[in-house]
């Protein structure tokens, strides 16, 4: 299970907002072949892994997409 840390991975200071670019970025993350989908696949498929290394690895990689 997961826990939320109330800080970003690194600071963000947008000097020139660009909604079209923002749209591209968020689509990369949440859209088809995006990291969000990949994360859920990692977290779902770890249950069928045969050993501790692969269970741990898929867990930690899946987790990384939320950092």
């Amino acid at each position, binding site marked *: 299970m997961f*826990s*939320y*840390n*109330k*800080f*970003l*991975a*690194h*600071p*963000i*200071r947008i000097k020139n907002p660009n909604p079209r670019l923002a749209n591209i970025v968020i689509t990369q993350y949440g859209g088809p072949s995006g990291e969000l989908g990949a994360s859920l696949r990692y977290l779902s498929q770890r249950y069928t892994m045969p050993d501790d*290394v692969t269970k*741990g*690895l898929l867990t*930690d*990689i899946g987790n*990384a997409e939320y*950092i």
Partner: protein
Amino acid sequence: MSRAELLNQIQSYGFAAYDMLLYLDTHPKDKKAFSMFKQLVEKTNKLRKEYEKEHGPLTPFSAANFDSFMWLDSPWPWEKEANV
């Protein structure tokens, strides 16, 4: 350290620790790597404690360590004020 500097340190050491974690997942017997992992995690935790003392909770349950419920307090991480 200022709030921003402290937060930057937490972000840096936390990132390094996480990277070391991923390496250890595929090299669990690497003693040197594990020792570095321990150092990085210890440093991150120390910095987090220091940050929380000055600026409030970083996780919902650590809100229990204060005299009032500060979890909802501004700023939230994606807001301008949190990014100095």
